[in-house]
């Protein structure tokens, strides 16, 4: 892959808005408090506020539902239940098994049962607590293994097999079997779920919603209200964080707000209080594993049989594709020749688990990292050596470069990347220094781990890999861009604006991205799967390129020369050694009746997937990375601290290195939270007891390591992605595996690394102390 493959047009050599570390397009608005989120928009006259009444039971038949006290409460205007939907009360992104409001039964504690509308947010919330509902309790399944044992699933089990795992396991010189688990995770976007529905003329509905998926909200609302999609317009300028939690699960809020507004013909806002948000919405799936692995004395895996139970919660939601991604990432960066992988989505009486950054990928990959760690401990090897020994072969190493689902890995850089990080982080020297420290430190013990990742980019579902964009050039030379992606903080609008500015040879300040709007780009995919910039950047580039070509043709007509030799640079157009400003050329184009706007479209090529056999070519390319973490653990209390983290990440040719670094660091800390302090606790009645930041602890300022070294790996995407960049949204969430395994390493030092610490995730201080105790008492 040489540099020249990247440079596909003349303009790119000279004008480089793409690739610059521009600040986020809303940065100045953010710091001034003038970036508007849905709840900040000036309210229309007569706006009402809704709140939800929630189920008190995990699984029950609703007996009587007396809402009289709710109706009589101060300020209340109306109360709605499932029976009030003129259309369909069901939502669900794939299988429509998810009632917006509960009907005869409730399926989890916290499930919305009714909506109350009042003059103020507070009045609605107060009234929602006054319902008198009787329940006839049913047996509730609260745990994934319990549900699995009962055969309670939301979808048919999945199975992928390659080679002859049975025979290979039998023949393997060494075997490891066991069970393990990782916990779930609350998205904890700072801006809670919210939808503001405004009736439009002729039964129409305009909804401003904090959502990663405006098109799906449009469809849900249209179905719920029995309207055609053209009657519903959904808009989102920005979200205060999404992380997957606003992909499918913004539907309930959008649907209820629209229902209320539809009946009352008044604007209705539904804003979730934090506790309600956490009680109602689904989270990252907790996973429960059974593994049986055969390997040789060198630590190379020869065969694996893996069972995964994902806790789906009460409905299917996105659990199917989450489990599929987990199956496709169980290899992480390693070649697994003979495998048998089964995955089930257990139906439990808890929140319906959903998308969360990584989307099953982290849950798949962390299992094989756990296995690597176990093998290393069994063989007395450094876990890094076991890992390296199992890496996918380089592209010319036949056989060892085909994934278990059949895709050939053609862009493997994991060997070089890990070698560079191993060296730049002084991994070996620090391993020695830590051993010396631990030998003389009676209470505090240090641990170190390096973990790699390989993450597949594209929606596993082929047809979702499409995007559209609109680019408008105005007579003053300013440019408006609209595309199907949503801005949740990841810098997508900044990157797309850079792509357009780059294409037209104008400064970034001349380009503005407007709110995502189903009235502008139709049938969009969710902004998810890390594909936002890949898809929408390409679509916007396509639109801008068409305009540029028309302008180049005009310039060639006016000034002579060939259209493909016209250069667009820094707001100036150079043609046949003559120059004019971009604005002048635009004005001339207008007078010449040249179309100054264009649509653009992109569909990722060469993707296919067979869901039955779980084989195909689901990914456009892979994003690689690795991290080294060093921790210190208190063996008396289980408290720990991250002392240093070194990260090397492959963003290809980054569209914006500053934004990419922000994504990497943010994902690292977020993933560290998942694996350590973020513990979801349900009581034995199935009620989530960690439903607010007072009890659910995401990382805070002191958790950011004082020594944090993040670098982008010098690379260029082999695949023709937008400017040969690579996705950066989800893959770095796998980097903090290194933190978890460093903690495990520190615990193992208590027994001079002779015992394998029984540590599950999240590694809270309590579970760390328990593992320390287990290792000590096993001595």
């Amino acid at each position: 892959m040489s540099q020249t493959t990247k440079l596909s047009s003349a303009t790119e050599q000279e004008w480089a808005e793409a690739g610059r570390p521009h600040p986020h397009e809303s940065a100045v608005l953010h710091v001034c408090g003038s970036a508007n989120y849905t709840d900040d928009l000036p309210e229309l006259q007569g706006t009402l506020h809704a709140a939800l009444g929630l189920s008190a039971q995990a699984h029950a038949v609703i007996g009587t539902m007396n809402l009289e006290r709710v109706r009589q409460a101060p300020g209340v205007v109306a109360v709605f239940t499932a029976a009030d939907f003129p259309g369909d009360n069901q939502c669900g992104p794939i299988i429509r098994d998810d009632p917006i409001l509960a009907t005869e039964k409730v399926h989890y504690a916290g499930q919305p049962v009714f909506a109350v509308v009042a003059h103020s947010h507070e009045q609605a919330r107060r009234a929602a607590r006054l319902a008198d509902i009787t329940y006839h309790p049913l047996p509730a399944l609260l745990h994934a293994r319990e549900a699995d044992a009962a055969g309670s699933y939301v979808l048919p089990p999945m199975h992928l097999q390659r080679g002859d795992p049975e025979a290979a396991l039998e023949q393997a010189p060494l075997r490891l079997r066991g069970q393990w688990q990782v916990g779930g995770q609350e998205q904890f976007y700072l801006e809670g779920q919210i939808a503001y529905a405004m009736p439009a003329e002729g039964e129409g509905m305009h909804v401003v919603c904090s959502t990663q998926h405006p098109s799906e909200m449009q469809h849900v609302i249209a179905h719920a209200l029995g309207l055609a999609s053209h009657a519903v317009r959904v808009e989102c300028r920005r979200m205060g964080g999404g992380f997957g939690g606003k992909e499918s699960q913004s539907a309930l809020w959008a649907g209820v707000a629209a229902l209320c507004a539809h009946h009352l013909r008044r604007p209705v806002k539904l804003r979730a209080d934090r506790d309600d948000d956490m009680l109602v919405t689904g989270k990252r799936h907790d996973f429960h594993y059974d593994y049986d692995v055969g390997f040789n004395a060198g630590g190379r895996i020869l065969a694996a049989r893996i069972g995964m139970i994902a806790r789906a919660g009460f409905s299917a939601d996105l659990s199917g594709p989450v489990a599929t991604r987990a199956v496709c990432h169980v290899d992480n960066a390693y070649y697994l020749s003979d495998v048998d992988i089964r995955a089930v989505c257990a139906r439990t009486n808890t929140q319906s688990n959903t998308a969360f950054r990584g989307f099953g990928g982290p849950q798949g990959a962390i299992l094989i990292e756990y296995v690597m760690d176990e093998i290393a401990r069994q063989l007395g090897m450094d876990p890094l050596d076991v890992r390296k020994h199992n890496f996918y072969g380089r592209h010319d190493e036949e056989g060892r470069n085909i994934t278990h689902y059949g895709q050939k890995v053609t862009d493997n850089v994991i060997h070089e990347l890990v070698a560079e990080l191993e060296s730049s982080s002084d991994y070996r020297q620090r391993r020695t220094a830590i051993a010396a420290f631990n030998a003389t430190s009676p209470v505090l013990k240090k641990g170190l781990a390096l973990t790699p990742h390989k993450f597949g980019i594209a929606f596993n579902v082929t047809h979702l890999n499409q995007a559209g964009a609109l680019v408008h050039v105005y007579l003053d030379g300013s440019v408006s861009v609209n595309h199907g992606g949503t801005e949740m903080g990841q810098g997508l609008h900044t990157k797309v604006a850079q792509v357009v500015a780059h294409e037209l040879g104008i400064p970034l300040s001349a380009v503005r991205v407007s709110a995502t709007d189903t009235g502008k780009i139709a049938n969009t995919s969710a902004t998810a799967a890390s594909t936002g910039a890949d898809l929408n950047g390409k679509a916007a580039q396509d639109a801008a390129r068409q305009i540029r070509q028309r302008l180049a043709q005009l310039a060639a007509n006016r000034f002579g020369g060939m259209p493909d030799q016209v250069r667009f640079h820094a707001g100036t157009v150079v043609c046949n050694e003559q120059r004019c400003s971009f604005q002048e050329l635009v004005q001339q184009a207008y007078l010449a009746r040249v179309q100054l706007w264009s649509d653009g479209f992109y569909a990722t090529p060469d993707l296919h997937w067979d869901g039955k056999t779980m084989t195909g070519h689901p990914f456009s390319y892979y994003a690689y990375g690795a991290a080294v973490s060093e921790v210190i653990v208190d063996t008396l209390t289980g408290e720990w601290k991250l002392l240093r983290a070194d990260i090397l990440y492959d963003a290809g040719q980054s569209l914006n290195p500053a934004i990419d670094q922000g994504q990497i660091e943010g994902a690292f800390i977020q993933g560290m939270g998942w694996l350590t302090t973020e513990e979801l606790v349900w009581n034995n009645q199935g009620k989530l007891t960690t439903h607010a930041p007072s009890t659910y602890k995401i990382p805070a300022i002191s958790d950011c390591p004082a020594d944090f070294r993040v670098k982008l790996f010098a690379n260029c995407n082999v695949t023709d992605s937008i400017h040969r960049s690579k996705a950066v949204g989800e893959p770095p969430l796998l980097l903090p595996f290194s933190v978890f395994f460093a903690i495990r390493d520190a615990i193992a030092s208590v027994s001079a690394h002779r015992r394998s610490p029984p540590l599950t995730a999240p590694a809270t201080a309590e579970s760390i102390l328990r593992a320390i105790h287990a290792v000590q008492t096993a001595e």
Partner: protein
Amino acid sequence: MSDPIRYFFKHQIHEIRDLPVTRTLLQHLREDLHCTGTKEGCAEGDCGACTVVTAELHQGQVRMKSVNACLQLLSSLDGKAIFTVEDLQQGQSLHPVQQAMVECHASQCGFCTPGFVMSLWDLYLRRTEDSAPLQRQDINQALSGNLCRCTGYRPIIDAAYRMEELPHQHFDAQPVTTALHQLEHGDTFCYTHQDQHFFAPRSLEALLALRQQYPDACLLAGGTDIGLWVTKQFRQLGHLIYLGQVAELRSLKADTHWLSIGAAVTLDDAYRALCNYYPAELGELQQRFASLPIRHAGTLGGNVANGSPIGDSMPWLIALGSQVILHGQQGERALALEDFYLGYQQKDLRPDEVVTAIRVPLPVSKQIFRTYKLTKRFDQDISAVCAAFCATLEDGRLHQVRIAFGGMAATPKRAAKTEAVLNQALWNEDSVLQAMQALAADYTPLSDMRASAEYRLQAAQNLLRRFWLETRPENPLSAHALQVSATESREQPV
């Protein structure tokens, strides 16, 4: 006759006459004034998206501090000034705090950003020409109450350093000083809405008179707990008596034996004063007690009077032998703090009495004293276990042993059996092991979402061992060798 609530905001004095007594500042800003720069993330003081800065007169001086707008009752802001994120920009030019945030790429989704900006502004205002260069510790303290889910904090930390390098922007306190003087009340402020009264007495005498007249009224100090009763529980609070303006309750006095901390002294002021006497012993607890905005609002008196079994001040206050001072119609009485707690949420407090001060003994010679807090997260978290150990160590033996725990029983409670094992005992490993056994007989902790009973007990025993390792006569270990939070972090590479 109701006084209007008057406060200074955006260069002018505002008067409020028709809002509920329990309207929060955040509701007021967002819903009444449509100043939507200040965000609601959790409405319970745990995320910091609603951080604002208030200013008030204290002994004639303007004091500014960051607080959580979601927990502040508007009525308690009478006579104060409010600054929000919208106040920082001057014309088109960003404040250095804002400029640094932009330059360092410190916002992603931007929703938490106004809160971070205000916490950094609070830090910025405290910096003077004599201030030592900012340390990571200072930044952690300033931002301990702000959650960000996007950035991982590194660029925000960089912005804190960067703001100091940009040309300084002076804050002109004159207009606010003038306004605050204008807003001062000579005697009790009384605001009434729909028959609910809010009183802000200025003197102890006036407070006690109101207490007698309204024995069922709710006493409000920092509101860090009562704010939740309003926003989360929708409790009907009845009349409110606010302690924050009672001059006698705002004083901090030391004599030869005691540090006396008025019940309305904020946690931040109280712990600063305490750390003058117990820097090593209370330093870490001060940092992780709660976030800075909570410490700016909450009071030590409130922490004690509330008497939560998981409050972090009581274990060490009890271990040191502190007293609570109560005032009522029959005058003043002093009570050993452990005697104040009768049972879960029950206190030895007569209807006409109020907690007016906490008296903390000053260090004595040969004293060994430590307090340790265990949580899932270092910043802003509620204890699973909070331990305090105090004794005098003479000739290798322990005397006057006082041990108290939070999180282990229905009240903050002494470990009588453990103390009995250790009193007069040689301070050696045998004694520690015996004492650790005795702890299991002292407490039967509960399991909840913070920790299991087993962890609480085992960690409590291990904290006793930590205390021994840190204070034993032979070869004591330093905190650096015992606590991960005390380990020094490496320098960041250039």
